[in-house]
């Protein structure tokens, strides 16, 4: 398969699979609460339902409010094509650099926060304010945990990193594990999971991500929800394929890619179960305790980095 073909495949893969992983997390959580829970395909139905619904847009909304969902969704699928999902090939993509990826994510967060404030809704305002607080503090941990990998691989290209880590000896793995822990904390913060945010809450005053998209309805809400699912899968895939890059296809032949897809789905399933376990055994942290956790992520990355350099 040509490089373009592979890139195109990745472009479709994330939006096609991401709702499934949200459904799996919900299902596992339901089981852990002695509930049956909805089918794992429920998020697909929800998105489909929202696409069929009418929209209500506030009279005070500006172009930011109406364009943000498209931008955020586009960024989320573009990023899906820019990270190693199935193979460590594709090194030539423009977006494959870790700094580009992190800051394109920041760009979509920025627009999300702007959209939250756009209608002047009080909930959107504090949702955005909280999101920016958390995002600013997460950045350090996220960048430095990935930098630890970059220094190991002597490259900031994510595909090169994935290739280099897979050929690392087990002895050299200690700093990678530290960086991974730092990355997981950043992942939970970025994707609005416990202990930072509660994606299942109905309490408007406690929301972060949900508060920002409270004014959306219909198709735009569908895009926002879908983009959030994409982002969740994106981060899980980054964690799976940068820190544990085994199972990546060595060539771009269809059988190798299918095998690689199987490995990816398996790794993401394990991650989903872990997230669900975490969310079922933990209470959400008090808002002012979150910075402590994010600093811990930053410091763990620094330690990992100092062990490598």
């Amino acid at each position, binding site marked *: 398969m040509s490089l373009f073909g592979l890139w195109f495949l990745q472009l479709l893969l994330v939006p096609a699979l991401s709702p499934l992983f949200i459904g799996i997390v919900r299902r596992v*959580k339901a089981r*852990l*609460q*002695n*509930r049956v829970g909805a089918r794992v395909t429920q998020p697909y139905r929800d998105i489909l339902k929202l696409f069929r619904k009418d929209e209500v847009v506030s009279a005070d909304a500006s172009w930011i409010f109406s364009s943000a969902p498209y931008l955020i969704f586009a960024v989320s699928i573009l990023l899906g094509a820019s990270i190693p999902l199935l193979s460590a090939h594709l090194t030539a993509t423009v977006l494959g650099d870790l700094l580009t990826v992190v800051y394109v994510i920041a760009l979509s967060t920025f627009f999300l926060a702007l959209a939250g404030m756009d209608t002047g809704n*009080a*909930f959107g*305002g*504090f949702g955005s*304010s*909280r999101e920016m607080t958390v995002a600013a503090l997460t950045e350090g941990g996220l960048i430095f945990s990935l930098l630890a990998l970059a220094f190991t691989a002597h490259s900031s290209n994510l595909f090169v990193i994935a290739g280099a880590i897979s050929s690392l000896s087990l002895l050299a793995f200690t700093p990678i594990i530290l960086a991974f822990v730092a990355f997981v904390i950043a992942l939970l913060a970025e994707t609005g999971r*416990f*202990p930072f945010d*509660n994606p*299942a*809450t*109905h*309490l*408007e*005053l*406690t929301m972060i991500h949900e508060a920002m998209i409270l004014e959306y309805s219909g198709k735009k809400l569908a895009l926002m929800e879908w983009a959030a699912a994409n982002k969740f899968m994106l981060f899980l895939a980054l964690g799976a394929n940068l820190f544990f890059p085994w199972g990546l296809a060595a060539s771009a032949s269809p059988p190798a890619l299918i095998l690689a897809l199987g490995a990816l789905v398996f790794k993401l399933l394990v991650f989903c179960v872990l997230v669900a376990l975490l*969310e*079922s*055994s*933990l*209470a*959400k*942290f*008090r*808002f*002012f*305790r979150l910075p402590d956790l994010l600093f811990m992520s930053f410091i763990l990355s620094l330690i990992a980095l100092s062990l490598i350099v």
Partner: protein
Amino acid sequence: MLSSSSFAAYIPPGFKPKFEGNLATGAVSVSEIAGVCHDLYFTRGLELKTITATDERNRGGGFRIFYVFGVPKQNLFIIPYIVLADTAEFPSLTKDIHEASSYERRIMTFFGLSPAGHPHPRPLILHENWPADVFPLRQDFNWQERPAAARGNYEFYRVEGEGIYEIPVGPVHAGIIEPGHFRFSVAGEEIMLLEAKLGYKHKGIEKLFENLPLASTLRLAERISGDTSFTHALAFCQAIEQLTELPVPRRAAYLRVIFSELERLANHANDIGFIMLDTGYSFGGSQGARLREVIMRWNERLTGSRFLRGVNVFGGVAKDITPEAGNELEAALQAWQRDFDQVIAIAEDSHSLLNRLEDTGKLDYQLAVDHGIVGVAGRAVGLKKDARLDYPYAAYAELPLEIAVEKDGDVRSRFYVRVKEARSSVALILAALKNLPRGECSVGEQRVKLARNRCAVGLAEGWRGEIVYFVMTGDTGDLARVDVRDPSFVNWAVLGHAGRGNVVPDFPLINKSFNLSYSGNDL
């Protein structure tokens, strides 16, 4: 019959009351009422139960304002009243007795009598769309006609300063809860001021009591606050039974304890679950819901109603518990308690949960005393008050019960008061089942005739706190006035204080730890 000597220690000099049952009622001149109440409240340490008014202008009187004081442990009530013949002003006690404030504002709103000297006499419950000169509890108010909509102004307290902004929340919420509006003034995430605007569920309950046939009023009482159906009906029944002198069979007294405690158990399990859920601890949330459901199904099995409606009747209860059902209930409750203990043990193992509960929504002790806080919120700051022991009713005097208290006044304390009470409720039900006397469970079908021109007070400890009914009959033995004081009415006044200084995302948790009734407050 009680003699006047049992009251002797609680009658201030100059107050010449009439003794009827467990009440000492008497007129006091307008100029002396502040002194008499000060004496009762501070010198004699009595509890203020309610302040309420009646409109007797069409019977040749004027307005009367009753100050209902209770004597704990004695089950006596001292009720001085003033008569306002040709004035619409009464002296406010608020500056002396702080908890009088809400009662006086309520009288002002519903009777159009103004509390002279009240520091901040704002209307309560009725909103700015209610005309300012229409007073629904006056006798000349036509309750079947909708008054013209007014366009008044509702002023919230305002905090000014750099970086302060207001968050309006409700009355429509994202979750399925009752309607109420909260106005937060915040600096960043910290709550500087929190004010609740209630009244969205006002439905004219007190006016309905005066107009419905007596037989229907009990059903009305059951619907004042749906989750407290049984105990509301019980408090009302107890007031009515005083006026009819219906002898309640001993078996009914025990059954009332059992049903009342089942209601408490279901609601406490629910609250314990919801407190955990609101911290995001979903395991605890679903276990609470499950434990509540077990009890609700027992309610349905025993009485045919999950909310125990239609169980209380004047003079007893309509549903008996057969010995077989009693045995099964006993085994089920023992299993329930083991289940409950396990859930609590798992929750106590979660540091992230306990961390969220500790120091959150702290209520100051003195503040609670000044506002006369009742129920779970009061016991969580260490106020050892419980109507089941202070004003023993039904069969509580014959059953073992210890008041559950905590001292910190935070969410954790309110959580643990509920945990302890759930355990003591199980013990109470088991003891009541064991000692259940034989006999009838009600006095049976008979025409209930109320004594004329009498007052009565009915008191019962609902799961939220003490419910007070003040009932007055007219010349024909009709219900001339029913004043309902749900515990929520008292406790809403301090929610803002408990919220202050916390971060906004903690407010839902604080609110849930109080879990006050909107319906019971708005009436």
